[in-house]
Every structure is written in structure tokens, then in C-alpha cells.
């Protein structure tokens, strides 16, 4: 029999994993996903209690949470995208410029590798036969 306790345990686990992930990871997209995870943990709590009490209050709340999470996802990803465009990096610790004056920036002793972004794909100029890469060659066959 799956009791309330099981639901709550799953929710707590979800929340805990999300929290630990948020605090330990520096990749902004990962951090965002962790935050979503915490949110879903809370949502499970609501659903569980709604079922336990036999009313729909919690369910309604979850609908709101989902709506808000969707908005938040849009905004957060847009911000992440803009930051990436500026600094070519998704490391949250690269963005310390809002610290107080006179406080030295925190520098990790083991810095993350800044991944070189791939070159954007370009088209061959018109009238020239494109030179195919190996994978394309394979696909054509």
C-alpha cells in the first residue's frame, strides 16, 4: 500500500537532490534544472496532501505552480542565453560583478574548463561543389 509517507519521502528526496544540485553545480542550466526539481518536489507534496485530505485545494495550487514554473523557465532561460552571449560561459561564478567594492572575487582553485564553442556551420559559396565531411559522406550512402 502506498501511503502518504511514501509520497512525502519521494517529494523530500526530490527537493533534497534539487537543493544539493543547486548549491554544488555552477553550470547555470543545471542550476536552473535543479531549481525546477525542487519545485516539483513541492508540487508532489501538494498533490499528496490533496489526495490525503480528499479535496482539490492542493491540486489547484499545483496548477498555479506549473503556470508560474513555465513563465519562470522562459525568463530564466532567456537570461541564461543573454549571459552566455556576453561571456561565452555558463559558469555562474564568472558573474561576480555585483559583489561589494573591495571584496576580492572568489576564484575556484579548480576552475572549470571554459568550453570553446563550436564554430557555427557555414554554407559553401555558390557555384562550388561542397566538400563533404566524413559523417555527411556516410549519410549520403
Amino acid at each position, binding site marked *: 500500500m502506498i501511503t502518504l509517507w511514501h509520497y512525502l519521502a519521494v517529494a523530500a528526496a526530490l527537493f533534497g537532490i534539487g*537543493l544539493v544540485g*543547486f*548549491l*554544488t553545480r*555552477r553550470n547555470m542550466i543545471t*542550476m536552473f534544472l535543479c531549481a525546477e526539481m525542487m519545485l516539483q518536489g513541492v508540487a508532489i507534496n501538494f498533490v499528496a496532501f490533496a489526495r490525503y485530505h480528499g479535496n482539490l485545494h492542493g491540486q489547484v495550487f499545483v496548477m498555479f505552480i506549473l503556470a508560474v514554473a513555465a513563465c519562470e523557465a522562459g525568463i530564466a532561460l532567456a537570461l541564461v542565453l543573454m549571459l552566455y552571449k556576453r561571456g561565452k560561459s555558463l559558469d*555562474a*561564478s564568472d*558573474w*561576480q*560583478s*555585483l*559583489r*561589494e567594492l*573591495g*571584496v576580492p*572575487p*572568489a576564484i575556484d582553485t579548480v576552475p572549470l574548463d571554459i568550453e570553446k564553442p563550436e564554430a557555427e556551420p557555414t554554407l559553401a559559396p555558390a557555384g562550388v561543389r561542397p566538400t563533404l565531411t566524413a559523417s555527411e559522406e556516410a549519410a549520403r550512402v
Partner: protein
Amino acid sequence: MSEPLGLAPIILALPLIAAILAAICSRIGLAKIAHVPLILACAVAAVLAILLVLKVGEGDQHQWVSDPITWFAAGNLKVNFTLTVDPLSSIMLAMVTFIATWIAIFSSGYMHGDKGYGRYFAVMSLFVFSMCGLVLANNFLLLVAFWEGVGLCSYLLVGYYFEKPSAAAAARKAFLVTRIGDTGFLLGIFLLWKMGGWNTDLTVLFQYLAQNPPDQAELTTACLLLFCGAVGKSAQFPLYVWLPDAMEGPTPVSALIHAATMVTAGVYLLARCAPLFAMAPDAQVIVAWIGGITALLAAFIALAQTDLKRVLAYSTVSQLGFMFLALGTAGVISPVFAVTAAMFHLFTHAFFKALLFLTAGSVMHAMGGVIDVRRFGGLRKLMPVTHLTFLCGAAALAGIPLLSGFWSKDLVLESLAAASESDRPYTGAYFALMLIAFLTAFMTAFYTFRAYFLTFWGPERIPEEAGHHAHESPAVMTIPLLVLAVGALFVGIVAEPFTHWFSHFLGHTPSLEQATLASGAKAIEHHFNWTIAGLSTGFALGGVLVAFLMYRKGTETLPAAIEPVFALSRNKLYVDEIYNAAIVKPAGVLAMLAKAFDGFLDALARLTSSIPRFIGEWVRPLQNGLVQFYALSMALGLTVFVAFVVLRVTR
């Protein structure tokens, strides 16, 4: 616009327009013609003012008060912009504009080529405007506004050569010392405002006080406070020290402001307020004593000064003392007589003192700015016009019979004599003051002719600064000298002794009639007092004779017996040093103490402000810009909070 009240605003507006025009001229590169507006405005104003005098004198009505325009009002205080035209103000107005015209013409020659030419004439015009306003104002606070206006112009003109530290210091001294008097003046006005049914209009106030006799002690206090202002402005003891230093300004300024007009503002104020002073005999005797002390002290200091302009400056202080002597008798004798004597002396003094200053300016112009009588001499041949006009002015000042100064000085002495013979208290004091006045008259004649002989007699000596300037001044400067010399010689004899025009004219002033009514003093018959005239002639001629015997060689060689006296006089009785030790030094110590206390307060404030700074220093590293750190502290804080709620509150 032939009505007197139509003329007055025009006379007032002309110099103001001139000031604006002169300022514009100097801005747009036409500084060379900046003197034109002032000369034209003063000349037209002088003509209008003389017309005004003629109109005021005829007919039955002798006073016009313009409709009050509210300047500002707050609670009980209602200040109106009202002008009044009566014999007193019209004669003063005519005198101011007339003298100003000739001094403006003289200035255009004297200041020629100066780099502040435009500024000079703009401020001079502003001064004439303020002075006319002061004369015409019929409201105490309006009077104060113009009073401060002339003070400001005086400050600007004394400090005209502001690159010179001594001129800047003199300007500051003039402003600060007169400010001491002005403080009393303002207090007096507020006291009068309270006593006089919350009125500030002069005519209304006098009417009110005549119908509701005020408390005697209060009235005496108010009069003395008003007198404070006059003491400051008219350079009376103990506040006279600014006037000799004010000679740092250009000489025509000294002639106009520090001899003929502005310094007489205090005399004019007391003449205007005669209805109040006539009711306060205790205040009057103090006025007379201050006048007497000043007259004697300044004449004594003038004895040995070597700076020609300073001799004249101390002489001005001394003659102003004479005017206050006469004013101080109002109430004991008929105020009409006393005020006439003071105003007549003011009137003639304006002519001959302006003349003397302008001739000193002419000498200074020729000597290349040197004004020390020890460094030049025997200028009789070199500057014949200046010499003759100076002689006219000096003779008038000394009181040589039949010249202006003789008649006016006699009126002052007569008023003192009448006061000492009256049935009122303080006759002894007035008798003593009369003796002081005679002594002063002797000294006046002596120091005036000492300056004359030292400058113009003896072998010709010219300082090397003079260079090619050492010749008679151009016509633009000598013509004003000649006009004023004629005034100095004849204005006295024309105006008073035979026709009694001046006293009859002033006698029509309603405020003076009111003062006579209030004091209850008998009118004095105008008769020529042979005793006084003979005595004063004797003293004057004696002074001239002594000066002739001592200085006809044109150099100063003193017998050893009187050398200490002259040393005392040369050092100005050490008054500046006494003030320095008694007032300036203690004030400096006080300022140092205040500064130390201020430093203590600052340290306290800095200590208080450093507490938040230290706390900030301590917690600032928390704000390190790391998102993870913020999230962690949020999570930990929330944990602690939840733990607290769970463990404490739900227990």
C-alpha cells in the same frame, strides 16, 4: 506730470536706468561712454529736484505722500512702498542730485582710462538711486532697504581697487562697522513698530505717537537705537573708525559718498524722526554729547595727519559731529531751529567738502597718486585753479566770515547757546558742548589751513611718481571745481542770513511742526547773534593765523613742546589700537575657542559615524557576488528558522 508726487518717482527712476545702462555699456564694450548715462540722469534729476523744491515751497500744501503699495505683509507687519515729498526731503534731494552731477562730470575726467570705468559709473548710478530712495522713503523698512543699498554701494566703491589688500580691508571694515550700527537701527524700528500701533509708515507712525503718547523710557530706548544706526552710517564716535579708512576708494567717491551724501544719511534720519527725538530729552542730550565728543576727537586727530584725504575725512567726521550737536538740541529749543541748523550745515558742508575732496583728487591726479602732504608742496603756481578752489573750500570750512561755513556753523552755535539758556534740564551740558564746539571751530580752521599751506605754499616740490602728469587738471575736472567753489562761497549767504529762505522753507515741514508741538519749545526769533558770530570769527581767524605762522614755509617743523601732542594726534589717539586690543583680539580668542569646540563636536560626529562603517567593514565580505553562496546562506537561514519554529513554537 508737474505735481510734486509725479516728479519724485521720475527722479528716483533716472539714476536706476542710468545704472542699468552703464552696466550694459560696460558689458558690450562701450565702457568708454559709461559716464554719459550717469551725468545725464543726474543733471535731469537735479533740474527736476530744483523744480520740486520750488513747487514744494509755494502754496499751502507742503507734504505729499504717495498712495501706499504693499511691498510685503506678514501678520501685524505691513510694509508699504510709499514716497513722501516735503521741504526736508526735497531740499536733500536737490542737494544730492546737484552735487552728484558735478562729481559725475569730475569723475569722467578723473577715472579716465581706468580699467573699471564701466563698473565705477554703474555703481555710482546705483548709489545715487539708493540715496534718492533713502531720502524719499516714507516707510521705515523701505528706508532700511535703501539705507543698506547705499551701504552696499559704499562697500563696492571703497573696495573699487580690490586688488589692493588695503582697499579690500577698508571696504570690509566700512561694511562691518556700519553693520554694528544697523543692528541697533533695526531693533529701534521694531520697537517703534510695536509702540506705534503696528505701523511702519513714518507719517502714520508719527501721527499715532502724537495722539497716543508712548512710555518715556521706551521712547528714549527707541530713539537711542535709531541713533545707533545714525552713529554707524554718519561715522560718529565710537563707530567713526571706518570713514578715514574708506579713503582707499577713488577720490570722487570720497567726495560724493563719504563727505556730501551718504554719511549725512544719519543726520537726515534724525531730522526726519525729529517728532520722536523732540519728545525724548534724555536721548537728545546723549545725541548732543556723542556729536560733541566726535567733533572734538576727530578735529584733534585731523591736526597732524599727513595724508591730505585723511585730514579731510577726519574733518568730515568732525563736521558731522557738529550736525549732531545741533540735532541734539531739538526739543530743548524749537526743533525747527535745531533741525534747520543741522540741515543747513549739512547743505553747506556738502558743497565745500565735496569741493575740498575734488581738489584733493585733482592734486592726487597731478601728483601721480601721491597724497602725502610731506612729499609735495608749493603747488600754487603749478595748479592755479585747484589752488584757488581749494582756498575757497578751506576758507568756507574754516568759517571765514561771509562764506557758507560761517553762516551754518553760527546757526549750530546759536542753537547750542539757545539750548544752554533754556528752561529745560541739561543746560549745563549744552553750555559745555558749546565751549567744545568753539574749540573745535578753532581746530578746524587750524588743520584746514595747515593742509592748505603744506600743499600749496613754500618752494615747489613734486614727487617723482608725478612724471608728466604734473600740470593743472583738464577742464572736465576744473569746471566742477569752479562751480562747487562758487557754491561753497555763496550758497550760505544766499540761502539764509538775510532772506531766511532756508529756515522758512524747512519750517513748513509738517513733521517739524509736529515736533515743535510735541516738545512745546518756544520758536526762536531769527536774529543775528553778534556775540557768537564775533567769537566764532575770532576762533576761526585765530586758527588760520596760527596755521599761517607755523606752516607758511610749506613744511612741518614742530616746536619740541607740542611734538608729543602732535604724535598723539598723528597716531589717531591710538583708537584703532585700543579697538584692536579691546574688541578684535578678544573676538579672535573667542573664535579660536569656538573653533576648538567645533573641532570637538566634529570628532564626536566622526566617532558616531565610524560605528556603522566598522560594522560595514566587517560584514562586507558576505556580499561576494556568488550565487551559490547566497543560495547556501538562504538555505541555512531557512533551516535555522524552521528548526526554531519546529522545536520552540510547536512544543
